[in-house]
């Protein structure tokens, strides 16, 4: 009997093999996703495996830019006061048909409502399913920002905001606003299998979920009904490979065609390999050291300036980020964004002047402080602990004794939010390309209270400028406001801005149609092997 079954399956497999077998696209990714219900999670790898592959949003970022273009909404209208947004939805969009769900209707306004109300309404039957909450929705304060969402007809939805919010449209292109199938959710609710939303996802996106093996692989197949054209890669496979060296070795061996996040130091070697190509792009990343302005003597602006003067910024780029792999940071956000001010130049490396400033501030004999950093690295900083050792040496040269504490990530975050550090190595990855996304969460006075303003620096003038800019919809005026605020930031020196790392992707030469995103997301809807 088993023999027959085997023989049968061989026959079936052989038949399957005859069907045209396009080359699958294998991508070496750096970690397992936390799950597939993207609204519950924050990590980029989770977004790549769900928001970019399985789901769509009302609007989306044009490939390779931070410009917003139509997605599931064909067009939209914004009221002159900037408070109501009316979206006109695309017709004929189909949800994925999978082994575990067969949709009976097409995408409509109910799905939009479900996807937002679930996060917004505490009484929604699905709200508590996300036990840890909806991190993006909550951290961007969408709950208080959105006053009301109405379905005007099956293909029209209106959002009413409680205050004007210039980046709102860009926010709607972010992963956490992905549109889920309300019909699938109802079916799961009826079957009382709510957790399947996270493990057996259904969306409208370019790829259909097939299988996931934790720490090993994720398999997708092309969505044959995709509204924006069927993806050219029939199969998309993610090979989960945490070590960056191993990813490159896999790429060279042909086990994958795209290796994400090669280390900048490996890039020159990759360029020499004529079977490989390296893409690079300026991204929305900032790596910085927060100076805790609530801890004397760091509350003295002269001391903060002296620390900035003590640092040899260029050397950090060469040793930590890799020469040509990052630009030295001056402002909180990179030069591609609104209101960036070229006239502000980095603090020079001038230990003498630093010593003089410290002397003026009454610290001729120097003082002691602690540097918080974490083991390992991430996209904003490949090796913060290495930078900490350089900073320690630089500070020593001007008489400041620094002690390094490498603390594991979870604990460091907690302690830094409580303000225990003097200096802390941090980073920020922009979510939507708007300056406010860098300034408000990291440098506003409100963020001091909540803790994620790691310099605990609250400057009334700066704060009022960025608030005005956030509530203004005119780009020219906003730019002017941001330029003013950046000048204050530079002068007050609450950070040691370190670098805007460039973002690299290594791929084999036969890959076509892959475009990097400045937001660090990876989308393979138009990518194929030649």
């Amino acid at each position: 009997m088993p023999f027959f079954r085997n023989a049968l399956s061989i026959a079936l497999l052989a038949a399957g093999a005859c069907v045209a077998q396009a080359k699958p696209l294998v991508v070496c990714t750096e970690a397992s996703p936390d799950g597939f219900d993207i609204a519950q999670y924050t990590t980029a790898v989770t977004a790549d495996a769900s928001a970019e592959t399985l789901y769509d949003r009302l609007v989306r970022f044009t490939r390779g830019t931070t410009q917003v273009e139509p997605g599931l909404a064909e067009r939209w209208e914004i009221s002159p006061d900037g408070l109501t947004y009316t979206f006109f939805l695309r017709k004929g969009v189909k949800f994925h048909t999978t082994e575990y769900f067969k949709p009976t209707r097409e995408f409509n306004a109910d799905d939009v409502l479900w996807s937002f109300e679930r996060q917004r309404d505490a009484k929604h039957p699905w709200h508590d399913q996300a036990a840890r909450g909806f991190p993006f929705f909550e951290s961007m304060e969408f709950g208080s920002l959105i006053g009301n969402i109405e379905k005007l007809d099956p293909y029209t939805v209106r959002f009413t905001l409680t205050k004007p919010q210039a980046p709102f449209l860009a926010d709607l292109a972010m992963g956490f606003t992905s549109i889920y199938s309300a019909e699938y959710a109802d079916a799961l609710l009826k079957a009382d299998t709510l957790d399947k939303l996270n493990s057996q996802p259904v969306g409208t996106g370019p790829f259909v979920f097939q299988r996931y093996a934790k720490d090993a692989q994720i398999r997708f197949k092309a969505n044959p009904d995709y509204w924006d054209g069927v993806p050219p890669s029939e199969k998309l496979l993610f090979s989960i490979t945490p070590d960056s060296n191993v990813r490159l070795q896999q790429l060279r061996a042909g086990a994958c065609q795209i290796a994400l996040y090669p280390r900048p130091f490996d890039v020159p070697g990759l360029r020499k390999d004529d079977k490989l190509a390296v893409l690079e792009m300026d991204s929305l990343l900032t790596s910085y050291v927060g100076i805790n302005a609530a801890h004397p003597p760091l509350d003295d602006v002269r001391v903060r300036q002296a620390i900035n003067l003590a640092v040899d910024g260029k050397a950090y780029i060469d040793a930590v980020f890799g020469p040509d792999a990052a630009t030295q940071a001056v402002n909180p956000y990179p030069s591609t964004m609104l209101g960036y001010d070229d006239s502000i130049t980095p603090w020079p490396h001038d230990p003498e002047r630093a010593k003089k400033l410290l002397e003026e501030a009454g610290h001729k004999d120097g003082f002691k402080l602690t540097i918080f950093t974490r083991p390992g690295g991430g996209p904003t900083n490949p090796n913060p602990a290495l930078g900490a050792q350089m900073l320690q040496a630089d500070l020593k040269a001007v008489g400041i004794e620094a002690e390094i504490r490498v603390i594991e990530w979870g604990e460091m975050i907690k302690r830094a939010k409580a303000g225990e550090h003097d200096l802390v190595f941090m980073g920020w990855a922009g979510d939507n390309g708007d300056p406010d996304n860098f300034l408000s969460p990291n440098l506003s006075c409100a963020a001091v209270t909540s803790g994620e303003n790691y310099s605990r620096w609250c400057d009334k003038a700066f704060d009022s400028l960025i608030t005005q800019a956030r509530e203004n919809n005119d780009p020219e005026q906003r730019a002017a406001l941001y330029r003013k605020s950046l000048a204050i930031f530079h002068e007050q020196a609450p950070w040691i801005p370190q670098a805007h790392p460039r973002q690299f992707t290594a791929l084999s030469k036969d890959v076509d149609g892959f475009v990097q995103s400045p937001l660090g997301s990876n989308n393979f809807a138009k990518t194929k092997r030649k």
Partner: protein
Amino acid sequence: MLSFIVRRFGLLIPTFFGVTLLTFALIRLIPGDPVEVMMGERRVDPQMHAAAMHRLGLDKPLPQQYLDYIGKLAKGDLGESLRTRESVWHEFLTLFPATLELAIAALLFAGTLGLLAGVIAALKRGSLFDHGVMGLSLAGYSMPIFWWGLILIMFFSVSLGWTPVSGRIDLLYDVEPVTGFMLIDTLLGDEEGAFLDALRHLILPAIVLGTIPLAVIARMTRSAMLEVLREDYVRTAKAKGLSPSRVVFIHGLRNALIPVLTVFGLQVGTLLAGAVLTETIFSWPGIGKWLIESIGARDYPVVQNGILLIACLVILVNFAVDVFYGLANPRIRHQS
């Protein structure tokens, strides 16, 4: 004999509860909480934080949480991961076969080679081969295995290209996870070449993980063999004119195996848990990495129950070794 087994088994119960209490306490002593870790640099509203902690049941007093945990355990419920929302049992089942497959391969490698080398070294005591085996095994159990793994990868995978760099199988093979053991699944799946590919992926990690057990087993076998060869019954057998190979394999090895198997058994426990470093180096989707990551994410249920499951395995393996030893050695059986 039965009473010996029952007595030994009775000792396991307090150990089991001790393990639950210890893991429960350990993970909660680590600063930071799961909600905080997830939010990273981002903002956590204290109210939202409190609400999330409430939903996770982490706002209750600790004794209450422990009782809830034990109550769930009694019902066989291992809870679900705070991070992935998957049941811990399910995650364990997907990852554990990978670790087990690796551990078995490593033990097979270490066992066969170690026994062989040990026996020959004992028979040729003082020869160049003997010295070689002893020297190599000394180096083997002094090896920092994470470093050893890196060096082997650089040499065999990168420079020579003989073995794959990492993972369990080339992703071009779409292998349905039936048993979770890649070697078995590839055979069930009948995709051509998949089995050999899985085997090639297994070689290097198995060698790295097997290095220390190999060294230990080789040394053990050699000394056990030397001991046995001195015993009267072997001398008698020789005197009776039995062929040397018969003497060695029937009389010598059989008796030398007892202490060797004991060590073997103890190594199983160490292997299952000790694969962390090997798994990290080879991107092997096993439980060691899973647990270390879960400690980082403060994923309480995973850490508690994952460690509990491994601890149970270790306890049971040790128990089996104890019983086996008792069977083989009546003196132990009658001791307390």
